[in-house]
Structures are given as C-alpha cells and as structure tokens.
C-alpha cells in the first residue's frame, strides 16, 4: 500500500508495518496470565483492520467521535487506530472517572460510540445510557462478568472483528480506501485538558500534531538508535502518552503493557525498558519507596546506602555544574556503582534506560539529582496538550529547575507579566465547540500558557508556577509560589501532599500537610506509637514532631522569606473522589483552600488547636462526618 503522503496515524502505521513486517518484529507485549504475550506487527494490523471494518459495518461514519475508556492495553491502541482508520476521532477518558464525568465527555464530544475495557467501565455507561441519546453502541474488550448482559447495544471485540471480516468480503479494499481518504489536518484525537479551572475542554489534535510531535521527538532524542522497548502505563487519554506511546509505535519500538496498574513496578523490572516516562509524582514515589525501605533494612545495608549515595550525589552535583569529577571521586563512584547503584538500578527496572522523561508537574531538583546520581538522566520537559512539547533538556545538560531549551519546532517568549507564550509547528486546532475559549488562549499566533516562568541567559526555560497560583504574600504586593515549596515538601517520605498558603496581613507562610500513611504508619510501628485511624495518626505528637523536623530540613533549601513558619496536619487524606485532587492527582487549590478555610485562618492566628467537622464520602458512596481537633504547630 503506497500513499501520496504520510500525514495520518493510520498511514504511518501501515508504512512502519511495511518496513518492519518482513523481520517478524514484535510490536507489542502485554503481561497476561503471568506471561509476557507478544503481538507481531502482522497481528496488530489484522486487529486494527478488521476492528475498523467492523466499526464501519456498525454504521460508524467519518468524522464521528468514539470515546475510549480503559487501562493501557494493546486493545486501546488497536481501537484508536481502528477508529482513526475509519475516519473517526478518538476521545480518551480516564478509567477512574465516575459515571457523571463520563457522561460529560460523551455529551461534550458528541460521541456516538464507546469502546470500553471491562465490566466496570461498561456498567458506568449502562448507568447513564438513557441520558446520552446519541450513543449507539458500546464495544468492550474484556468480557469477564459481561457474559449474561442483555443490552442490545453491547458488542464484544470478537463480534466486531467478525463483522469486519464479513464487511471485507462484501467491500474489498475498503480499509485501504478509508485510510487513503484521511488527511493530515483531520482531527485525530480530542484530549480533554485536566481542568484545574472550570469544565474540561476538548483540545482538538490533528493527525499532523500526533504524527509530527511524536516523530520529531523520536528524532531529537534518537529513539530509534537507542531504544528497543517502552513501558506504556500513563493514561492514553493524556496527550503525553499519545505523543510518546504512538511515537514509539510508529518508530518500531516495542510497547510493553503492564499486567495491572498495581504491578507496574514489578513489570518495569522484568522488561527493563530503554524508554520510560514517569510522572513527577511517580519519580517522587520511587525515591520515597527506596528511602523507606532502606530505613527498614539492616545496619550494614544502611551504611552502604548512606555513604554510597553521598559519593554518588557529589558526582551528580559536579555534573549538574558541568564540571568533571576529580580522579579520586571517579574511583569512588566506580566502586559505589558496582556495589550499590547497579543493584538499585536493576531493582527499579532502570538498568537499560537510555531516555527517561517526566512532565506535567514540577519535579524537585533533589529528585532529578537523586536519579542522576545513579546515571539516569530524567529529562523534565515542558509540554502542553495544546502545543505539544515545547522545551526539553539536551543530553548531558540536566540542570536543577530547568525544563531545558526550546525544541527545534517551538518558540518561546515571555509576556510583560512573566507569562510563558509559545508558538509551535504542532499547535492544536482549537477547543471542540468552544471557539471563544480558543480565542482567549490563542492570540496573534501565540498560545498563552498561563504559566509563570523565566528564561536564563543561555536559553533554558524555568517554569515556576501557574500564573493564577502565584499568590500574594502579606499586604505589600509581594508574590510567591506555593508550588515551589510544596514540591520540596513532597520530597520527604512522610509527606504525601502539601498545601502552602501565604498569610493575608503578615508575610508568614503556612502549610497544611497530608502525611504519607504508609511511611508514617511504618515509622509509628517501629517506634511503638499506637494509633487507630489516619485522623488519629496525623495528630499524634510524635508524628507532628517528625513532620516539624522534616519541614525544618526543607526550610533550609528555600529562600528565607518563603520558609514555613506554621503548619498543621490534615486529619483526612485528600481525595480525588471529593474533588480535592484532579484525576492526575494535583491539588485543586481553590477548592481545598475554600473547604479548609477555617483551618487556614486558625493557622495564622495564635492558636494551639482548632476543632473541625468534615463531611467525607466513603468509597461505597456513603457519607460520614469526621470530628476532631487539629493541632496548629509552629516551626521555631
């Protein structure tokens, strides 16, 4: 199959197929029933082709939208390519969305088809089916528990494949024709932006966006030369996975899918991928787990770890300053690498890593340094759903705070207020059905990111915070970035989340801390501190002292006037189901500040305790009330 141009996902997919098929190469691998099950390029093409024809036979038309909701599995990829081959648009939805959210996405995108993972997701659709009249069919790929469902609009993948095979006999070559009819400027995906403000908006991404941003990044970071495998587990509903995952597929890099979301850490070790993307949160959580486990291990191990890391971190420091370590340090590092870091890298599945990424949130410099110390360069890139990847650190030039230099296809400038404005070859095609929102963000060809940042003399971009999150401190017009401090607080293994607030009438900074239940719980156990619930544990004097010590240490690394002077521990965990966090686990600042306004007030008054009564929603939908006293603590 030869096309006049390769400007759509399905066309490029077929092109890569022709290049690698003869070598019987593996395209994807998924861990199922305890074994990594491979799919060749031939298998994948068959799946995509007949699924796509099956959709056509069900009446799916060019330009129609299909919601896909599921975990990262080969079926997600096949479904996406099948929908796009049929000329449709994919709308990715996060699996932990509740039915009302799924309903919003279906209605807002005007989707007529849903492709769902399993019973859990299908049940959500059945619950809202009456309220989404334009939805015609629901197709699922994991039939477990769905055997006896009688809804007429439900189809299994197998049924659709068979429809596709029949359709092919009646309409030969229709798959190829349908792919050939696609255009680079056609919309391929609607990516809903995570919505720290207002309702999520569907950013329209064209085929050119997808193919272009994936392939250009692959070229820039030499994926084809250095990488064999990729572990796919960030949600495909997110533009980042669309760019990385499909970029890998089109580059002929094997895509590996973990067995379950809970088994990612085991699976990454089995696969040892060369290309890896962890969210900032995950890099943090990996380093946190090591620290907690080391604290639990034998004295000898702790000794090796502590002293080994000291040497390794010094080497990382010199690297970050672009110096080269002295001969003695080099020998020391070699020893540490052999005795400690090699094993650590293996444990974490980082043995083969050639390219490691992070994005979508600030990453503490300590974390970047920590992994650099074990020779993993975590490239914190700056990207936007609406404009693709804007800046990325060049190889060998990993600096704290920096998001690297602009990519060859993007331009950056700062507005007078310090807002980052970007231009890119891979710009989105606007928000779906929201032209006024598009106009607001896209002016004179520059996309307004609403991020506050600055550019260093040698062109590195430093993103400090969201514009709207730069908060006033005191009443003299001073501003500071709470996130800057929060990221550093989260580096403590005992702090899972933090909300930092500036006082209104003084220049005091205070923090609300969500303790890490696992690690503080372990600390409590090994120190013989009895506790019953999260609420109880969070207000134990020993735990408060522990957190105070952590904050003191972190205070030393931030500018004097931003240091935390007061703090209190949250009496409950912040929860996405209560709208306190977004689905990507970022704090919804305004909401949380409003909800716990009284605690915040208490923080800046000279009080020792504050009693609260909070309504909480349990996992099963029941509601309850937590009543407790919260301790207000000062850092001296």
């Amino acid at each position, binding site marked *: 199959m030869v096309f006049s141009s390769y400007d759509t996902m399905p066309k490029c997919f077929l092109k890569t197929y022709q290049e690698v098929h003869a070598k019987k190469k593996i395209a994807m691998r998924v861990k199922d*029933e*305890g074994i990594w099950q491979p799919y060749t390029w031939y298998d994948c093409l068959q799946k995509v082709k007949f699924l796509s024809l099956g959709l056509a036979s069900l009446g799916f038309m060019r330009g129609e939208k299909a919601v896909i909701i599921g975990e990262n599995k080969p079926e997600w990829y096949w479904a996406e390519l099948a929908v796009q081959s049929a000329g449709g648009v994919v709308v990715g939805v996060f699996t932990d969305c509740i039915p009302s959210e799924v309903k919003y996405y279906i209605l807002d995108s005007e989707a007529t088809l849903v492709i769902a993972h399993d019973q859990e997701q299908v049940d959500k659709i059945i619950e809202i089916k009456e309220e989404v009249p334009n939805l015609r069919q629901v197709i699922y790929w994991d039939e*477990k*528990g769905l055997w*006896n469902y009688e809804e007429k609009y439900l189809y299994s993948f197998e049924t659709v494949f068979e429809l596709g095979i029949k359709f092919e006999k009646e309409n030969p070559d229709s798959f190829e024709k349908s792919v050939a009819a696609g255009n680079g400027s056609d919309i391929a995906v609607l990516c809903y932006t995570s919505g720290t403000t207002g309702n999520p908006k569907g950013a329209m991404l064209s085929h050119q966006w997808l193919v272009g941003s994936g392939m250009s990044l692959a070229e820039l970071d030499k994926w084809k030369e250095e990488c064999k495998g990729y572990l796919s587990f960030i949600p495909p509903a997110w533009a980042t996975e669309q760019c990385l995952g499909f970029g890998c597929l089109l580059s002929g890099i094997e895509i590996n899918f973990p067995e*379950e979301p*809970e088994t990612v850490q085991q699976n990454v070790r089995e696969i040892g991928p060369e290309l890896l993307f962890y969210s900032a949160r995950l890099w943090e959580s990996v380093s946190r787990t090591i620290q907690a486990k080391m604290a639990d291990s034998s004295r000898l191990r702790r000794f090796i770890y502590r002293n080994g890391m000291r040497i390794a971190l010094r080497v990382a420091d010199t690297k970050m300053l672009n110096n080269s370590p002295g001969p003695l340090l080099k020998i020391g590092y070699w020893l540490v690498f052999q005795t400690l870091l090699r094993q650590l890298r293996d444990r974490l599945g980082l043995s083969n890593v050639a390219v490691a990424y992070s994005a979508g949130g600030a990453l503490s410099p300590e974390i970047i340094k920590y992994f650099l110390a074990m020779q993993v360069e975590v490239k914190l890139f700056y990207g936007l759903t609406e404009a693709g990847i804007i800046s990325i650190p060049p190889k060998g030039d990993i600096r704290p705070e920096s998001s690297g230099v602009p990519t060859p296809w993007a331009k950056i400038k700062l507005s007078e207020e310090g807002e980052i404005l970007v231009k890119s070859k891979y710009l989105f095609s606007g928000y779906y059905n929201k032209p006024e929102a598009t106009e607001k963000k896209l002016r004179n060809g520059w996309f307004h990111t609403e991020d506050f940042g600055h550019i260093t003399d040698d062109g590195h971009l430093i993103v400090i915070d969201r514009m709207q999150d730069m908060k006033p401190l005191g009443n003299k017009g001073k501003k500071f970035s709470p996130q800057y401090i929060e990221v550093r607080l989260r580096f403590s293994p005992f702090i899972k989340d933090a909300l930092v607030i500036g006082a209104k009438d003084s220049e005091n900074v205070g923090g609300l801390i969500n303790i890490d239940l696992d690690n503080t719980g372990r600390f409590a156990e090994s120190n013989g501190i009895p506790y019953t619930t999260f609420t109880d544990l969070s207000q134990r004097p020993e735990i408060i002292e522990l957190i105070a010590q952590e904050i003191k240490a972190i205070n030393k690394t931030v500018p004097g006037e931003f240091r935390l002077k007061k703090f209190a521990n949250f009496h409950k965990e912040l929860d996405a189901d209560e709208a306190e966090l977004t689905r990507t686990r970022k704090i919804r600042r305004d909401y949380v500040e409003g909800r716990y306004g009284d605690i915040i007030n208490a923080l800046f008054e000279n009080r020792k305790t504050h009693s609260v009564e909070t309504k909480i929603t349990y996992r*099963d939908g029941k509601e309850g009330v937590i009543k407790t006293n919260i301790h207000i603590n000062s850092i001296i």
Partner: protein
Amino acid sequence: MNHETVLEIENLSLNFGGIKALHDVSLTVKNGEILAIIGPNGAGKSSLLNCINGFYKPQAGKIRFNGIDLTGLSPHKIAKLGLARTFQNIELYSGLTALENLMAGTHIHMKRGALAGMLFFGPAKKEEIKFRKKIEKIIDFLEIEAIRHEQVGSLAYGLRKRVELGRALTLEPKILLLDEPMAGMNMDEKGDMARFIIDVVELNQIPIVLVEHDMDVVMDISDRAVVLDFGLKIAEGLPKDVYTNSKVIEAYLGGNEDE
C-alpha cells in the same frame, strides 16, 4: 443451563453425644444455583457443610452427589469427586505465597509422583506448566495478579479470602461450598466477593452452597435459602419469602412465650 439436581441430602442427622447438631435435614441443590444456608449461631450450618465434605460422619441419612453416595467416604475422596469448599477461618499455608497456595490446591489432579516432581523433568515438568496455566486463569479471574508472589500471611483479610476461593477453584469443582465467605469484610470487599461468586456460577455453570450471616448478601445474590435452627430445617424458599417467614423471625429474634 440444565437444572438437574446435583446434590441431594436426605434425612440427615448428626449427634455429638446427646446434642443433636442436625436433625432429619433434607435438601437438594440444583445445577447453576446459589443456595444460601442461614440460621442463628449454633444452628448447624457449618456442621452441615462438614458432613457434606466428609469431615463429620452423620449417624443417619444419605448424601448423594451426582448420584454417588458420599456418606462414609473420606474428605480427600470427596474432594476428588469435584466438591470443593472454603472455611470460616481461612485455612491457607500462611508462609507460602498466594501462587504457591494455589499450586498446592492442584496436587489432587497431579499424576506424577513426588520424586519426578522433585527432579522436575519430562512429564512432571509438563504437568506443572499445565497447572500453572490453569492457575494463572484463576489469578486473572480473581484479580490477584499484584499479590501473586506475596506471602499469604502478610495479606489483608479480604485478599486472603480471595486466595482461599482461588484454591477451591483449582480443584475444578462441580460444586462449591463456601463457609461465610464475607465474614469480617468491609463493604468494598463484600461487593467484590459477591461479584466473584456470581461470576463463578455464570462462568463454570456450577452450583454454590453458601453459609452466610449477612442477610443483605443473602438477599442480593442467592437464588434460594434454607434456614436452620437448632439442627432443624425450619424454612426453605426464595430469599424474600424466607426473610418474612414468621418461624425465621422467631428463630433470629426469639419467640414470644404467650403466643
């Protein structure tokens, strides 16, 4: 699904010395149904299960399973016939991993001897791989992939119950007896377990006999219910009928002497 009788119990009586644990109990279990056995503490529910799988020898009565008389057979022979059960107080090897516990459940179907197994050679190896494949299907079914290699003793209670159900499934049972599968669970875990129980019946087309205290669960998932009180069967029928039966209410709440 054919609704022929799988298990038939006729006039079963069990005495411990002078105490009548079961008195003249009769019931049948049909293919593909979930039968709940309920009753107050000490009503004889667990005793009934123990009679069926051969732990106790009843003094009178007959138990027939697919036409075969079970009375007098030893528990391991009964298990081999396709009758599997779980226990009220989880009975797993707590020092072994979830996977090893499940593998242990398959030994009943293994044909190779201990020596061949130790050498792990030829047919013994093939057999082990065959069973591992089966077990992986069960692990997938019960969604316990993440704890495959974890020691059972360190698992949360709800997960241990799931592993125990998994082990019962490794026997490829033709009927499953569950002794309080949801005792001590929270709402989430109960919901999961209820779904697994229904899925087992739908997927394997086998009946399940369920001893359960939680009336909500019984009402939700069982097709029929049998009520025992002091070793006597006092009611049988649809869960909602049994629930409103005056004898049953009396058994649970205590009778009124004046009436």
